[in-house]
Structures are given as C-alpha cells and as structure tokens.
C-alpha cells in the first residue's frame, strides 16, 4: 500500500490548550475542587487529643501499625474493614456510573482535580487559550521563557506541597515539615516526597489527559457500566444538525426560526465545546471513551445558545434511549432499574455492616492458640498437661491489666507461670504462656473448657472456648 508507507505507527502528542468557561458545571467543579483541596491540604494539620501517639486527627502510623482516624484507632487485625471499604468504593462507583456516567472522572478524580488546577495556573500566568497558543508558537524570548518557567515552577511548587501533605498523613505533620525544611528529615521522607512531587507534576502538569486515555483502568471499565438509560453528556444531533447539517450563522441564518426554515440545525459550529474540552474531543461525534463527562462543553454551549438567543441544552446530560426516542421527555435520572437498585442495595448493606462492625468493636481482642507439639504431656504424678498461648490486644489508649481464669475445670488447673497478671501497654499486643494440668480421670472427660480473661479496670470479661487433649483420643 504505497499511499500508507509514510503513516507512523506512533501518535505524536498534541498538547491540549483549553479555553476557560463559566457555567453551572464549572461552578460545581470549582466547588468540589475547593472542598477537596481544603480537606486534603488542611486535614493533617487538625490537632486531636491523644494519649498514646501524636496529637493529630488523621495519622496513619506505619511504624506502630496503627491508623488514627479521629477517635477511631485501626489495628492490623481490622484489615477486613479495608476489604469492606474497597467494596463500598467499588459499589459506589458502579452505582453512580450506572446513573449519571463517569461522574467520578469528571468531578472528583485526583487526576482531574490536579490537571484542572494546573490548567488554571497556566491560564493565570499565560492568559486565555489564544494567548497560550500564540505563546506556544512564538520563538523563545524573555516573555516566553518567563511565562513558561513561571507556570511550571508554580506547578512544581504545588506538586511539592501535595507530596509533603501526603507524607504528613503518615507522620506528625508539624515536626515532619520542620525536619523536612531544616534538612534533618529521614531519607525515606525525602524519597517519598521526591517521588510524589515528580509523579504529581508529571501526571497533572505534563501527561494530563494521557493518563485518562492510556493509563487509567477505571476509565476503561466504566464504559461497560453505561446502560441505555444512563445519563451521559450528549450532543442533541437531531436538533444540532437539522436536515442539512450545522452551519455558522451567516446572514439569513441568524435566528432559530430562519435556520429551521432553511433546514439547518441549531449548532452554529463555533467550536467552543471542543476548545473547552480537557481531553480534546468533539462531543458532537457522539459518546467517546475519552469523554470524562466533566460537563464543560455543556457550559460552553449553553453560553453560546444564550448569546445567539436559542434555547439551552443543545449539549446536555441525557440518556441514549431518550435521545433515540420519538417522544423524548425532559432528561431525568432513571433510577428504577434492576442494576442501579442492586448496586444501591449492596452499597447500603455493606455500609451498614461496616458501621455496625466499627461501632461494636471491642477494646480488647483476645484469642487462644493451643500448643500442638506435643498435644499433651504426661506428668510424673500421672496428670495430663496441655499448653496454650493467650494473645491479648489492648486497643485502648491506656495501659491495661488482665487476669486469666478458667471455667468448667478446677480453678487450680491453670498455671500462668510467673505472670499471674498481664499488663499490656496502650495499643500493644502480648502473648503469654498458659498451662492446664488435669488429673488423668478428669482429663479423659474434658474435651472443652473456657479461658476467661478479665480486664481489671473495667471488669469486662471475655471468654475463649478451647479444647483439651488427652491420651484417650490417641490410643
């Protein structure tokens, strides 16, 4: 095929220079951004009264393996909460995507938020889209060097603070920041900040939509969650194109009525919907995998429709089914669907299970493990001994003392060695040895018994059922 010989197998990246826009979706995006950034950047600085760790409201302490979330302390034993949380996040994503498409991508995703912020930095320093395009084209001079380097320097600064903030969630923020800037921080801290700064800058400042197009798995699989009733950012092709297609508003085609009479649609082909798009697509070509459904083209189009005096909503949130319908209704959220209700049910169920679980968690976790090598020991006076390891996790904020007793067998059968009372420091775990000696006759009859662990300060009792082995089962 000679005419294709010059075709490259690789696609050159054409930077997307977006036009700023005003409108309800832009306002919503800005509000989400303000809220998300306020929470993200300020939360590590929120103090919280704490006994056993730094006074920080949110602290993921990896060295002592405890996550502090306000008054909740998460221990490694609570790992299944993470499984629930991930399930909830997944179900929420499926639920929302089924209803209103890729709302996560368009309004909440970190990639979207940081790209959006960095685009606004460019806008602030380099000006509106035409100015930025002109700057790109012009030769390197003082103005270009200053504007380009200033905007990238600002992006790197934001990236640096993003990285430092991230690290602050894992370390006491005030001392981490002081140590970081006085050069006395840990190498791990510097490394984490360096990596995160580079990644934030690369993802938000350089790669931008390339992440959504080529790297993000969520962008790909959200496509399969769309149904015919899912609301998506859609161009009303019937209204926009009319019978003879879109055209610019030349003389005689200026009003809605004139255009309808001439057979042209309402789209005046101004191209603003393309110019504002952060992934650089033309929504008029239909739903595309690149569309992150941020709604900016809706704002752009509504503004144009207002200025030329046509009704709004040429580009709008609407469903595929409604678009194809002969008698379309006003776009609305279609939630009465099996899938949506199913996801909502799963979401509600798992959320309540998680909250119930967190709410009913005990401050103490105990378990017992029988020593299985050997299963039992014959003592010189003919008694039978079994050995156990009792594991106690103190999840309170103070040192606690525990006593161990036994039920269903004589009290004096228990031998705790030289440790009659077990003191466990706040947030720590301890395993202690326990021996049970029973007379041969009693041992033959005893299959199960209970350890009772009492928290001395509160009198709270925890029972642990365990088994007793003797020669009877093995002869």
């Amino acid at each position, binding site marked *: 095929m000679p005419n294709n010989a010059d075709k490259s197998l690789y696609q*050159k990246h054409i930077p997307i220079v977006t036009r700023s826009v005003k409108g309800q979706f832009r306002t919503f995006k800005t509000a989400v951004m303000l809220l998300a950034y306020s929470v993200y950047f300020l939360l590590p600085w929120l103090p919280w009264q704490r006994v056993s760790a730094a006074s920080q409201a949110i602290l993921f302490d990896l060295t002592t393996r405890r996550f502090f979330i306000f008054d909740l302390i998460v221990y490694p034993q609570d790992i299944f909460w993470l499984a629930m949380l991930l399930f909830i996040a997944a179900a929420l994503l499926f639920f929302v995507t089924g209803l209103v498409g890729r709302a996560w991508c368009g309004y909440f995703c970190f990639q979207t938020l940081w790209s959006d912020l960095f685009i606004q930095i460019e806008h602030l320093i380099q000006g509106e889209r035409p100015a930025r395009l002109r700057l790109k084209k012009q030769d390197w001079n003082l103005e270009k060097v200053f504007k380009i380097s200033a905007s990238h320097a600002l992006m790197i600064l934001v990236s640096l603070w993003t990285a430092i903030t991230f690290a602050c969630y894992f370390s006491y923020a005030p001392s981490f920041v002081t140590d970081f800037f006085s050069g006395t921080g840990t190498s791990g801290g510097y490394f984490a900040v360096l990596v995160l700064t580079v990644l934030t800058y690369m993802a938000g400042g350089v790669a931008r939509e390339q992440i959504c197009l080529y790297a993000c798995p969520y962008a790909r699989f959200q496509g399969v969650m769309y149904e015919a009733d899912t609301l998506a950012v859609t161009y009303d092709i019937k209204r926009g194109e009319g019978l003879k297609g879109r055209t610019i508003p030349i003389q005689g085609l200026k009003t809605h009525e004139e255009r309808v009479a001439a057979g042209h649609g309402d789209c005046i082909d101004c191209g603003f919907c393309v110019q504002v798009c952060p992934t650089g697509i033309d929504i008029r070509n239909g739903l595309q995998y690149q569309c992150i459904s941020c709604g900016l083209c809706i704002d752009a189009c509504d503004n144009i429709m207002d200025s030329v005096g046509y009704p709004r909503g040429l580009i709008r949130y609407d469903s595929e089914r409604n678009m194809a319908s002969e008698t379309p209704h006003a776009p609305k959220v279609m939630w009465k669907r099996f899938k949506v209700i199913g996801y909502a049910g799963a979401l509600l169920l798992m959320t309540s299970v998680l909250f119930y679980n967190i709410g009913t968690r005990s401050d103490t976790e105990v378990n017992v493990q029988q020593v299985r090598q050997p299963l039992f020991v014959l003592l010189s*006076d003919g008694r039978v*001994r079994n050995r156990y390891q009792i594991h106690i996790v103190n999840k309170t904020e103070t040192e606690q003392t525990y006593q161990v007793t036994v039920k269903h067998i004589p009290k004096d059968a228990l031998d705790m060695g030289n440790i009659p009372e*077990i003191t466990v420091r706040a947030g720590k775990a*301890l395993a202690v040895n326990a021996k049970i000696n029973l007379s041969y006759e009693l041992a033959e009859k005893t299959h199960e018994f209970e350890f009772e662990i009492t928290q001395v300060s509160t009198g709270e009792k925890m029972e642990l059922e365990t088994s007793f082995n003797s020669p009877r089962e093995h002869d």
Partner: protein
Amino acid sequence: MSQDNKKVTTETTGHVWDEDLQELNNPLPRWWIWGFYITFAFALIYWLFYPAWPIANTYTKGVPGLNNVTYVATKVDGTQETKTTHWNMRSKLMVEMNELHKEQKPYFDKVAGKSFEDVSKDAELMQFVNSAGKTLFSDNCAPCHQAGGQGKVKFAPNLTDDYWQYGGTYENIQTTIVGGRHGVMPAFKAILSDAELTEVSHYVLSLSGEPHNAAAAKLGDAIFHGDKAGCYACHGVEAKGNIAMGSANLTDKIWLWPDVLGAKTPEAKLGEVKTLIYGGMDKGVMPVWETRLKPEQIKLLTVYVHDSLGGGK
C-alpha cells in the same frame, strides 16, 4: 462486518484481506515508545551495579566500588570477620541479618542483665523469649528433643513434662546446656541371674503402680537394696533417683529408656525393663553447648526450656 455498517470512522492501515477485512489503526502514543527505550538505558545502568551476564562458569559482577556490600560474618569457630563483596543476594541477606541481630541485641542484653526469675516475670520479655527461644531451640535442640521439646522415648528426654533427671531449676538447666550430660547405666547380665533380673524388674514396675507380680517384686526389693546389684547406690534407697548423677526416679509415671508406657501388655512392660537392666544403657549423651552458643543465648534457652516449654521447677 456487515455490509450496511459503513459508518466506521476509525482510521485503517489500508491493509485489506479477504475483500473486506481491514486493520484498524489505533497508534500508540509516541511517549509510550520512549518509555520502552528508557528501559534499555535502565538495563545498561543496572549492569554497572548488579551481577548480570553469565560468562562460562562466572558472571559479570558490576563495576567494582559502585556496588560494594560490607557485612560481618560469623565463622564456625565463633570469630567474626568483616567482608566486602560485590552486591549479590547472599551479601544483601548478610547485611539484613547483621541489622536484625543489632535490633535483637537490646533484648538479649535485657535477658542477660536480669535474673532468671525476673525474666520469667516480665511478660514483654517473655514474648521475646518465646520467639527467639523457638528459633534457637529449632536450630540446635530439636534434632534430639524434637521441635516441641517433647523428646523421644529411648532417645532424648521430654522437656515439657515436670520430671528432670538432672534437676529442673533454672541453674540445673543452664548447667546441663553449658556442659552437656552423659548418662550411663551399667549392664547387669554378668551380675544377676535371669530369675533375679525378672524379680528386680517386677519390683521396678511395682514402684510406679504398673502391673507386676507381687511375690516376685518382693524378691526384687531385696535385690534392689542388696549389695550384690547395688541398684540403690544410684537410684537411691527410695528409688527416687539422684539429680546429681542423673539417675532416674523409678517411682513416677515417666519413662525414658524402657518404653513402659508404650508397651501394651504386662509381659512387654516387663521385657522393656528387664532388657534395660540386662544390657545397661550408654546413650544418654547431650553435647556441650558452651562452645557453640553465646552465654546470653544459653541463658535465653534456659528460660525458654523452663517456662515456655513449661516443664521447669
């Protein structure tokens, strides 16, 4: 592809097979291929730092000086030497082991600095004793005493029960580990007749309530306490053994050398005891550990055997 669906707007490579089978052109972004080239550069840098290419029976070791790893190795005789080699999995492991030993040291120091009783009263330190002791025991003691310290009849004593041939106090156990033990019982085949062997065996079984012939046991009693055999000299007049020499207590339920508990019939039990008295025993050998383990390791093992295995007195 159906004939009426001609609205495909995706670019094709222009290749067509079987009249209508076309190849869509979805080109990779160019930066992607750069990423691929960067891995080439990464490989080159990697070769400078790490062992990479096998050559005959050796391999490239990276540029000397760029990737040196220094660690302290302990030789078989206990002396330490500092080694520097190129990076490899073994030297990296050694460095990590050095670091772990450094982390362990404060705990071993704590054990070394406290009395046995104080260690056993410290629940947090006992947790270290449990885990470090398990490793030391598995590496050194388990081949004879078995992984859980349960021992093996006719081979090595059970350390989880409450009977100790050489004493079950901390000091006794430490002495045993430090200096080793050698338990011997002489053979009586030349001293006692077959009938006498049977009688004294009945007597031994009677001491712990095992099935026996009372009349024979009575005769055996006289032999046990008589000067011809002189059993009482080692096992004591009350046959309760002597921890100073490691002679067994014959009055309790614990048997190490004759497998009395394992034998099902009275005849078999008698046979076990009789065979031992007949032929004697010279297998009770525990090696000396003083030269192989450090003092703090022996101390920790002592507490482990006494409290964690749980047989100590």
